[in-house]
Every structure is written in C-alpha cells, then in structure tokens.
C-alpha cells in the first residue's frame, strides 16, 4: 500500500519539493507505523533491547569484529571444528569393547593428560560452547525478528540442527561408559519408551550388567560420527542462501576462545566418573547441564511433559515464521535500459539474490536479475549501482537497480528539498545532512532548522555520490550513521559503506570530498543519544574549519 503511494508520488506532476515532503511523511509513517502490539512483539522487543545493550557493552572490550555475541553463528561453527579435530584423535585411541571404552578414555586423562587428556577436555568444553552459541544464536535471531520473509529458509533449516546437536551431545556422553553415561543412557531410553514407537522397552537394553555387549559401543561410535556429519550437512544447507558466509570468526576471537578453553582444560580437566555398573544406581553425578539437563527435567516433571515441551518448542519454532508478520518489503527492481551489467549489485548483495544474465536488448552485455525469494529489500544493490548518482541531469532519476519503496529519485528529491530548506537559514549557520538507517538509531529526531535527516532502508543503500552532492549543494557537513560493526541487520550494509567511503570499494566516494566534512557513526537502535552527541560535536568542529577553502566546488543540477 505504501509502495503504491510512493509510486503515485513519483509519477505525479506535483512540485518536487512538495512531493518530496509528502513522500518523506509517508516514508516516516512506513518506518514508525503499523506497530505490532502483540505480547510476542513486546517480548521480542524487550529481548532485542537486552541483546543490544549486552552487545554494546561487549563492544567496549572486543570491538564489533571480535564481539562474540555479534558472530554467534561463526563461533558455533568454530566450536564444531574443534569438536571434529579433537574427536578424530579420540576416535583413533578408543577401544570399543565394554571394558575398553572406559579404560581407553580414562588412560588419556591419566597417562596422556598433556595431549589426549587436553583434547578430551577440549572436546567436552567445545561441545558445551557449541550448545551455548547455538542457543544464543537462536535467541538473538528471534529477538531481532530474523525468522520470516527472506530469512524463512535459514530459520527453518536451523531448527533440525538443534535436535542433531543434542542427539550427538547426549550420545557422546554414553561412549565414556561411566556412571554418568549409565545414568544418561537409562534416562534417555526411559524417556523414549514413553513414545508409542517401540515394541519392547528400549530401557531393557540397560537392565543388568549382561544386557549390553561390545557391539553396542561400535554402533554408538558410528552414530556419534554419523550425526555430526548430518549436522555439518545441515549447516551447509542452513547458510546456503547467504553470500560471504562467516565460516569462522575473526582470528582474535578464535585465539581468545581457544585460549580460554585450553586454560579451562588445564585447570579443570574433563574426567570420567566411576565405571558404569548396571547393578548399582548412580547417585551423585557431575552433570553437564548444557547437554544433559533434559534428564533432571524429566525427573521433576514427567516424560509426557518433556516430550510435550520438546515437540511443542519444535513446532513453535517451525510455525513462528508463518505467524502474522509485518508486510514484507518490496524487492529490488531492475531497469533494463539503465543496467550496464557491471555486476556490482551481484557482488554486494548479502543474500545472493542478484545474479547476472545475458542482457535481452544489448548484445554482449549482462543484466542483473533479482530472485524474489531471496531479496531482503535492503537496497544495498541500489547503493552499489553506478547509475545511482544524483549528478545525472534527468528530471526523473532512474537507476539500474532500485527499491520501489524508496527509489533513488525520491531520495534525490528528498535531499534537494531538505537542502532547499537548509538554504533558507541565515548565513553562518552550519548546515548538516544526516543519512541514517531504519534499523539503526532513529535519525528523524535530529531534524532541526539547520539539520536535515534522511533515513534509508539500510545505510548500505546510500550511493557515496549523494554525500558529494549534498556538500556541493549547500551542506557544510554530512553524517552517515548505521548499525554497529557486526550488527548490520542486512549483514554487510555498514561494511560496504565503510569501504566505499574509504575508497576501497566501488562505487567509492570521490576524493573531491574533504574527509573532515564527513562523519561516520556506528550506532545501534538504542543509541540515538550517542548519534546526537556526535552530530553536535561534528557541527562545532565544522564551525572551526576554514569554510571556503575546505568545501568542494558548488554544484547546481541542470534539469534536462
């Protein structure tokens, strides 16, 4: 509905300034309107705020690139690689006989503590770290509302991975065949026996010492290798629809995490309990609460309650994307006449939604093609398009790839209207233009007599030429703000913006723009005050500059 209103604004014959102002009002309505007042939305909002505060707190020590909370998926994968590497060694020394499993694992911890024992401890603690990272990743993506629309596939493919992780983790504890393994094996089979699937109670397999044989551990090891392989396959599917996947976190984060696990392994090595004895019930157990919490939960409730919880949570997770959600953003639209096939949108799209095909009208040229199922509607492609420059003289600016809900033509008209308003201020006023992001700190509150604020779908959709255009059309300074490093809602928007402004990525900001007239601010949604402070400081800094000598030459667009 909103996009239709914008579209009609585009095609109407209204005066540009009025149109831009009207569109701006509609645009603001789009950003702040259609509130979802459900309990779920309220809960999610609170969770998002909590995550943002903790992330901002961790940023102070780690910075965005090394902040573990901002890279939970990559961190989880890193734990998985540690598990695979350490597991390979443990497998080579494992004796799969009933007596042998306990003895061979125990031997590592006692006689070879410096290698096998450390690897065993790393294996256990990395598994706990994996579960922790996985559950935090799930909670964070939910809190940020990243489970519907174009993210549906990633969300749905992620849910079975939780099952695989827990099956693998619980099975791993059985291999040691100590008292804890005995407890977990019996508790798990008793839980399974509540389901009406088995002809005979599976818990009968652990009735008495002579109930199990050596083949049990051979099968168990096979499962403990097979399930993680399925997990890796599932992870491949999970990240299949996004580009430039962070398969590993930053080197510093990896080293720091590994060091902390190594220190933990030294201080508190993972050890076996007493050997399993099915004639005796295990009493006090050093339980791994990350993985085996389900057993005490069954004891204090019932198998029926636990299965209801497990299946209920799984169904809820699968159903979550299909609950009523905010209207999906319109997707990017390619204009064949203005697409020169440069592939920049293809390179910058965070979700591999843009591919290149043969141009239907220009022989030997390519054209961008947008996959509607994958497009996030972030506008990063519009920001990457070389045709998205406001210096073009056409009355209506049409670029190669654009967003229907906020076309670059509207952006230019909005900017020109705001610059015209700022131009009416008294001489000596320091006029600022602030470009912000709908997902980051609210920049509309900064609008004042000497400040124009324009919020974009994502800061990554800002073509750098708009900054030059603003400065050459009357602004004294430009502030560009977006999400904190590692916190971009569309993954790569701020990274591309930073690189474009630093002349490291096309389309880059021309060197005509003095660096001291541009301020880049990384701020999350809750940091509106921080942005306001930076803007005020920047304004004061600009006042102290020798204005005439440091501004790029003035420019006035000729309308063709």
């Amino acid at each position, binding site marked *: 509905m909103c996009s239709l209103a914008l579209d009609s604004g585009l095609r109407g014959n209204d005066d540009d300034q009025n149109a831009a102002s009207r569109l701006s009002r509609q645009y603001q309505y789009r950003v702040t309107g259609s509130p979802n007042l459900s309990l779920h939305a309220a809960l999610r909002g609170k969770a998002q705020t909590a995550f943002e505060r903790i992330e901002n707190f961790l940023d102070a*020590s780690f*910075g965005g690139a090394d902040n573990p909370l901002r890279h939970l998926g990559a961190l989880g994968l890193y734990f998985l690689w540690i598990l695979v590497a350490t597991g390979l060694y443990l497998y080579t020394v494992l004796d799969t006989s009933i007596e042998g499993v306990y003895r061979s694992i125990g031997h590592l911890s006692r006689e070879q503590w410096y290698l096998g024992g450390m690897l065993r401890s790393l294996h256990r603690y990395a598994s706990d770290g994996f579960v922790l990272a996985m559950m935090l990743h799930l909670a964070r993506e939910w809190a940020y509302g990243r489970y519907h629309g174009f993210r549906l596939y990633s969300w749905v493919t992620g849910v079975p991975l939780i099952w695989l992780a827990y099956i693998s983790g619980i099975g791993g504890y059985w291999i040691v065949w100590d008292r804890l393994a005995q407890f977990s094996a019996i508790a798990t089979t008793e839980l399974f026996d509540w389901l009406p699937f088995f002809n005979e109670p599976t818990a009968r397999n652990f*009735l*008495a010492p002579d109930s199990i044989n050596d083949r049990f551990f051979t099968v168990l090891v096979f499962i403990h290798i097979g399930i993680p392989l399925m997990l890796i396959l599932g992870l491949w599917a999970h990240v299949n629809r996004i580009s430039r996947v962070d398969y590993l976190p930053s080197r510093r984060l990896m080293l*720091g995490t590994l060091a902390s696990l190594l220190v933990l392994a030294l201080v508190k090595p993972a050890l076996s309990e007493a050997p399993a004895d099915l004639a005796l*019930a295990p*009493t006090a157990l050093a339980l791994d*609460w*990350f993985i085996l919490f389900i057993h*005490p939960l069954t004891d204090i409730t019932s198998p029926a309650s636990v299965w209801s919880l497990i299946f209920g949570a799984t169904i809820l997770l699968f159903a979550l994307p299909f609950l009523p959600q905010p209207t999906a953003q319109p997707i990017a639209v390619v204009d064949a006449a203005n697409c020169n096939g440069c592939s920049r949108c293809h390179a910058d799209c965070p979700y591999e939604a843009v591919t290149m095909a043969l141009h239907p009208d220009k022989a030997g040229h390519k054209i961008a093609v947008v996959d509607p199922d994958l497009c996030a509607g972030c506008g990063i492609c519009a920001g990457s398009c070389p045709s998205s420059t406001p210096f073009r003289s056409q009355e209506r600016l049409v670029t190669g790839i654009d967003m229907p809900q906020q076309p670059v033509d509207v952006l230019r008209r909005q900017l020109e209207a705001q610059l015209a308003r700022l131009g009416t201020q008294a001489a000596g006023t320091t006029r600022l233009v602030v470009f912000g992001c709908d997902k980051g700190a609210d920049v509309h509150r900064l609008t004042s007599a000497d400040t124009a604020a324009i919020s974009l779908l994502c800061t990554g959709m800002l073509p750098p030429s708009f900054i030059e255009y603003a400065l050459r059309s009357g602004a004294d300074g430009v502030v560009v703000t977006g999400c904190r490093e590692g916190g971009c809602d569309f993954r790569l928007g701020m990274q591309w913006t930073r690189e474009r402004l630093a002349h490291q990525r096309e389309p880059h900001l021309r060197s005509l723009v003095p660096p001291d007239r541009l301020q880049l601010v990384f701020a999350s949604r809750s940091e509106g005050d921080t942005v306001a402070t930076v803007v005020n400081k920047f304004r004061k800094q600009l006042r102290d500059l020798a204005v005439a000598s440091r501004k790029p030459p003035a420019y006035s667009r000729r309308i063709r």
Partner: protein
Amino acid sequence: MPKPAAIVGQIILYGAFAAFIGYFSTSPTYQQIPDDVALIKLSMSHLGGRECRKRTPEELAKLPANMRAPLDCPRGRSDIKLVLELDGKPMFDTVMHPTGLSKDGVSTVYKRFEVKAGTYQLAVKMNDNLVINHDFNFVKEAQVTLKPARVLVIDFNPDKGGLFFQ
C-alpha cells in the same frame, strides 16, 4: 591494537566465559535417588498364551497337504496379569496387553520403583493366559536385602525357570 583497558576487559570476559562453561559442565551435582534408597526394576517382555484347538482328521483332510497343521491357533495373544507385592502389600498391579495391530506381539512392562534400603519379602505373580488360567501360573517369592543404590531386576525368562530376581 586494542587499548589496555580493552585487553583487560577481554581477559575478564574470556575468563567469565571459561568459568561459566567450566561450572555448568559439572555443577551443580545431580542426585537422582537419595543415598539410602535402592531400586527395584520390574521389566519383562513375554508372549501371552493362546488357546489352540486340535484339528480333527476330517478337518486336516480338507486342508491342502502343505497346510495340515495339527493345531488351530488364533493369531491374537492373551493379556498378561502381573502383580508385585512388597512385604505382603500390593506394590504394582497391572494387565499387560499384547502389542501389534493384531494383538499378536509381546506384552511388555518396564517400571522403576524406589524403596528404602533394607530387607523385604518380595513376591511377583504372573498369569500369562487369562483365557485358560484363573490363577497365577508363575509365582516368585523371596526375601531380598537391598543395599543403598542396589538395583534389583525382576524379569521373566522361560529358560531360567520363568520369573527371576537379578
């Protein structure tokens, strides 16, 4: 290069992460049963009986040569009645139903009972063919001494004489 304060912050936070993982990977200790308790596990998997009828020579003659089984047995199995008594008092009383859509599978039970450690008179009685038998056709009774954490299994195995304690 991170500032010294950031490095200190990282060390503290990595330490907190390791401490969190280290603590909850083994603590708090979980105790499923109290120290002075033993377990009795009643578990069996047994085919209930069925009443077969001997075919008459005339009936056998009417059948194809390869199908002349002397007994005509129904496919379904009988329910099994099972009673467990501790010191003469009923502890568990159930009727186990055969599994399978045609009720031709085994009847099973798996129950775990927590009892205070001590000496008890334990009796288990089973009737595996409710159609024919009007009383329990398998009975096992014995005085058992259960030490703390001891697991006593009550099972059924025809090769071991029927009901047995382990």
